[in-house]
């Protein structure tokens, strides 16, 4: 076990959660709850992988994955914005739909080897001791993009005029409507943005982080962890990044714990009996629940965080 390796790999795997969670933050900030992240991610993973296989261009794969996630999310947008349906059920059906589409269209992709996204070093920054090799060496460009998207999306949400409109339609849609802000338009836009980022996160998995197409195992519940992360992060991109990276490191740590024969001076039970690793596989899910408990308590205490109009359809002319 090497701290630098854990940090390096945690940053990479955590970026997937980071993109999906920030996408969901945008969507939820506009008042739309989209629980279909897992389905959009899986479809993105399949679309990116398949496109790269067909065209030999992983970057085209990323673009197609972004579009696939975005277009799928519009189905949720239509049903929850125009049809004013229950967003929980709509999000669940989006998960089914995305998973089903990905499995049907991804038939036969297992075991294929398309060109993958390459890793790069950042000059100068990579020379910083410890931090450099962990954060600025041998990462995909999308991981570096993750460093930028976190502060940029925070600034966008909190410091710009469009960000103000975004928060307004999520908090007080009727007031925003009175001021001439298009509630429906913005909700469609940010549902789409969330879908695009989820699709991107999926392509990151299948083309870079753990390359390959393993049907529904490709995402293995990460979309749901991303949604939990949004609550834990209280709709704040910085906290989402922190949580995502911590989760990524945890996943790496779990892998590493199985290797050594001796651990902290005692015989490693995981080395003796590999079946104990089932308990390790559980840990991210257990920790998600624990993180949620703390996140929810903090939200309840501060009585803030969750956008007031989250999950509530906006109907012109109705009070509320």
């Amino acid at each position, binding site marked *: 076990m090497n701290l630098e390796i854990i940090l390096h790999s945690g940053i990479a795997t955590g970026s997937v959660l980071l993109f999906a969670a920030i996408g969901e933050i945008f969507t939820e900030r506009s008042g739309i709850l989209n629980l279909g992240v897992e389905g959009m991610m899986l479809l993105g993973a399949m679309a990116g992988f398949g496109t790269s296989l067909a065209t030999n261009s992983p970057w085209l794969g990323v673009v197609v994955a972004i579009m696939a996630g975005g277009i799928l999310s519009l189905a949720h947008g239509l049903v929850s914005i125009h049809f004013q349906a229950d967003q929980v059920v709509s999000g669940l*059906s989006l998960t089914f739909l995305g998973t089903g589409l990905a499995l049907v269209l991804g038939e036969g992709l297992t075991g294929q080897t398309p060109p993958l996204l390459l890793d790069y070093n950042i000059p100068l920054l990579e020379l910083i001791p410890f931090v450099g090799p962990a954060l600025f060496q041998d990462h995909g460009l999308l991981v570096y993009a993750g460093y930028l998207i976190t502060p940029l999306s925070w600034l966008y949400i909190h410091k710009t005029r469009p960000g103000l409109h975004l928060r307004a339609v999520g908090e007080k849609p009727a007031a925003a409507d009175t001021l001439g802000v298009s509630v429906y338009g913005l909700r469609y836009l940010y549902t789409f943005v969330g879908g695009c980022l989820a699709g991107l996160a999926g392509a990151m998995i299948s083309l870079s982080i753990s390359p390959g197409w393993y*049907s529904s195992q490709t995402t293995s519940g990460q979309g749901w962890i991303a949604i939990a992360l949004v609550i834990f992060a209280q709709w704040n991109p910085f906290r989402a990044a922190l949580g995502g990276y911590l989760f990524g490191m945890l996943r790496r740590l779990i892998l590493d714990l199985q290797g050594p024969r001796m651990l902290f001076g005692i015989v490693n039970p995981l080395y003796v009996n590999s079946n104990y690793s089932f308990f390790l596989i559980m840990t991210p899910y257990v920790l998600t629940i624990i993180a949620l408990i703390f996140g929810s308590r903090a939200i309840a205490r501060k009585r803030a965080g969750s956008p007031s109009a989250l999950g509530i359809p906006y109907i012109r002319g109705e009070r509320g």
Partner: protein
Amino acid sequence: MSIKLRIEQRVEDVPKWLPIATSVGSVVVAFILGGIIFKIVGGKPLQALSFFYQAVFGSWAVFSDTMVKATPLILIGIACALAFKMRLWNIGAEGQFYAGAFGASMVVLVPLIPEDSPKVIVIGMMLLMGMLFGGIWGFIPGYLRAKYKVNEIITTLMLNYIIINWNNFWIFDQWSDRGFQMTATFDRVAWLPRLADYAKEIPAFSGVTLHLGVVFGLVAAVIVWWIFRFSRWGYEIKLIGDNPTAARYAGINISRNIILVMAFSGALAGLAGMAEISGVVHRLQESISPGYGFTGIIVAWLAKLNPFAIIPVSVLFAGLIVAGRELQPAGLSFLLQGIILFMLISSDVLLRYKIRLVRTGEESA
């Protein structure tokens, strides 16, 4: 003068036939859309449809197989309907199913009771343990939701992953049968009675795998229907679901109801798990569910949360599962389920709005 679509809010009551029509319509449209996608990826939709019919209703033997698959769906559908009625999103029925299977297995594999106990005791004990473990797996998210306002959608889902790995540990390690990834087959005393067991008396039952679990499903439907229709508890559940503020003012203890409903919902899903391993698999092994827990969500929704309507809807979806085993590509039944649910919630807009064709000239007049 041109003709325009106009959407108006419904003021009068929804006609009785409309909700049924939207359910049926959703399924039909989903099959057509699914067929088109199937065609695009190179399948033969019409052939698949006749295959579907043959595989599901073709003969008594395959219909019995369909009913065996419908059994867990009925129980899980009812479990989901109970929670959804209160707008509690229990999407962890899959995990509660696995938890119930684990609890029931403990009776045989630990063993919790003397090995020469009579069948009634063994089955009764398995039933209790199945419901208890499923109930615990529903209680946890219920408690967290009631006490800490933790979103039950995510906790129930995370608990799915946790229990599946927990079961795997026991299957691969402690209870492994000679290193295989399954436990030893249970003694016949722990098997739910099947119609085939009576083939000697009634020859027509020979080979019919339908087991007692389906009766559990029917009884659960009656009980939950009675709860919704006649009991004070059912009234509280509906009131909390429709209008939590009014329920609070009426002095209803919402936290207590959240915990109770989640635990009861989990117990029903756990019962499904018990029935599956005692009636069908006869041992604990990996992947005992082809996603019953998730299909049950759609079943409940399509049946408009009506316990009796859940029964025929479960049979339809059991058919999808039976046929889906043979149909390639494998994700097709998932896709169909997704489209059905989407169509269904989209069509709900028809229950709230009327769509009329109007002449624009008329409008200005």
